[in-house]
């Protein structure tokens, strides 16, 4: 996030405590104006609480909320130029679609709201349903009413609390595109909460990954994905293979790691652990789609300089677009490999001996003290 961009929302040392439970740890966060900002994190990590503090629906225990240059910490929600799209939409069941949409405008004393309501319903493609009650709409339509109801007010910031959580997969993908389109059209700052990482990556300009009440990492989607800063981020944002290893040597721009009896190379600038001294324990990470898989018989074709591992296919599952392999190698029992289905891969069936290899530039190094399973979802159960 570059400093020259005007800040849409700035949180300074903000925290929230319920009784003796701290839902949000003191944190600073600055959301650039006009950006599509995603707050990503597991259930219960404090996303909603953060959003509610911005909306004024929750009073922060400490810290300040600024909108642009204005301190709004003590303003009640109805005095903040901020609107929210709630997860369950919270549409007023007794009002028609157009009255729902006009609600905010009317509260601000506007008399002639017809034109604006019409326009925004046009924007979300709901013009013909203006007179229906929310109960007469499908999930996707309700979602769009909730959106229209918020953006018609032209708030400085629009908060979206998992607005797509209740939709089914197909509809959800479609609404994502819609949302993105609308954001581009209206240019309002969107702060979008989700725990769907794919959603966050496709939609947001900037993602903040939250874990247990604090922001673990913040950056552009590709940046976060390619260079995660912690095991949690690596696992939560997409899938990662994290191999426990030890630094054995540093060679110029590269670090040489040892995992079992295998040597792995890691660019020094992709090493996130604090120390790079020999003997330091690290987790060597590699994304499943970066790994090429080929039959052991085909080993000769592995390019020079690639990191390589050998193993046995434990499971291969066809997902249409790609095939996902689980490979067992002696010191890493479950390596995931994604192979896009272009030509059918002969011989890569469970039980086959394979060699995995990848460009060392894609390896990333993490502090070895972490739980390699953090953020995989195993801990969420």
């Amino acid at each position, binding site marked *: 996030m570059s400093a020259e961009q005007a800040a849409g929302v700035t949180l300074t040392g903000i925290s929230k405590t319920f009784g003796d439970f701290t839902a949000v740890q003191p944190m600073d966060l600055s959301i650039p104006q006009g950006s599509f900002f995603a707050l990503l994190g597991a259930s219960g990590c404090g996303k909603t609480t953060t959003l509610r503090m911005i909306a004024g*629906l929750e009073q922060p225990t400490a810290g300040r909320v600024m909108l642009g240059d204005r301190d709004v910490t003590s303003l009640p929600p*109805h005095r903040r130029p901020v609107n929210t799209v709630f997860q369950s939409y*919270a549409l*007023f069941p007794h009002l028609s679609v157009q009255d729902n949409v006009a*609600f*905010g405008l009317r*509260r601000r004393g506007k008399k002639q709201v017809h034109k604006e309501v019409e326009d925004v319903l046009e924007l979300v493609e709901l013009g013909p349903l203006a007179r229906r009650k929310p109960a007469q709409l499908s999930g996707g339509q309700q979602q769009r009413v909730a959106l229209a109801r*918020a953006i018609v*007010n032209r708030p400085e910031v629009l908060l979206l609390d998992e607005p797509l959580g209740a939709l089914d997969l197909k509809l959800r993908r479609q609404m994502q595109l819609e949302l993105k389109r609308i954001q581009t059209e209206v240019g309002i700052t969107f702060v979008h909460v989700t725990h769907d990482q794919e959603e966050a990556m496709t939609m947001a300009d900037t993602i903040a990954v939250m874990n247990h009440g604090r922001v673990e990492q913040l950056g552009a989607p590709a940046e976060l994905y390619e260079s995660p800063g912690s095991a949690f981020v690596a696992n939560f944002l997409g899938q990662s293979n994290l191999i426990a290893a030890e630094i054995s040597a540093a060679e110029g721009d590269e670090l040489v790691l040892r995992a079992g009896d295998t040597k792995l190379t890691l660019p020094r600038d992709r090493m996130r652990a604090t120390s790079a001294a020999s003997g330091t324990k690290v987790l060597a990470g590699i994304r499943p789609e970066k790994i090429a898989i080929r039959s052991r018989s085909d080993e000769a074709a592995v390019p020079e300089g690639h990191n390589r591992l050998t193993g046995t296919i434990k499971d291969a599952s066809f997902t249409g677009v790609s095939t996902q392999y689980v490979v067992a190698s002696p010191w890493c029992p479950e390596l995931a490999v994604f192979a896009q289905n272009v030509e059918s891969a002969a011989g890569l069936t469970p039980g086959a001996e394979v060699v995995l290899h990848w460009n060392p530039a894609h390896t990333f190094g993490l502090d070895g003290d972490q739980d390699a399973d953090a953020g995989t979802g195993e801990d969420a159960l």
Partner: protein
Amino acid sequence: MTALAPPPPAAPEADAPPPPPPGGRRKLTPYWLLLPAILWLLVFFAVPMFFQASTSVQSGSSGEGYELTWHWANYTDAMSEYAEHFGRSIMYAAAATLLCLVIGYPLAYMIAFRAGRWRNVLLVMVIAPFFTSFLIRTLAWKHILSDGGPLVGALDALHLLDVTATLGMTEDDRLLATPLAVICGLTYNFLPFMILPLYSSLERINPALHEAAQDLYAKPATVFRKVTFPLSLPGVVAGTLLTFIPASGDYINAKLLGSPGEQMIGNAIQRQFLNVRDYPTAAAMSFLLMAAILIIVTVYIRRAGTEELV
């Protein structure tokens, strides 16, 4: 398209299993379930109404007995002689209903949204007074409102009694034996009938709607006016009906807390039935009261636009 061609239209073939018996046992189940309750209500609710209807057009005397003479004059007589009672009943009941709404709403709201884990305790508190007999409690009111009591003293000192007296609600610096006492008694007695339906419809409101309204620039008062209240309307309608209807027929409050000037139609029916033993007049009055209530309720429900009462 797959090769799954639709077979010929579903005519049951010879070897196909028989379709479920049309209308069999399952169709009758609801009727069996309803039978006892409906029978009970028919015999002890509908049939009595019929008897009363026939009684209402009888004539005769308590000494000689009454017989069916299609004496419609019972109705006109009752109407003309007790017009004042009818009017008073409707007015007092309406006033009490309004008061119940005003007093009961905050309590129902508090139980629904602000009570936390005290919710159930508070709900019990609302129903528990029923267990102390209604009469005991009304007698307690007589005690509280007593002329020499502290309440009258306090209100008098605040000159509030002068205000109510100018409004014609009280008399001579006293509360007992005034319209106000009767209305307050009615309000008190039927308050739980207002609170319970209000509570159940308030409780159903998603709290996120309040937040959504605040988020859309509504002040707390506007949130209430535009969201909470409209959404609680089914409860308001049910509550007002459950209060208004019994209140309009009550006689205990008027009898214990009122003066001759505050007697309601219930008192008249009760006295005609139990003391004067003029059953036809009592029956005619009952039917007139029923008709009045039916009209009022129908108009009211139309206006409130709620069909779903319970």
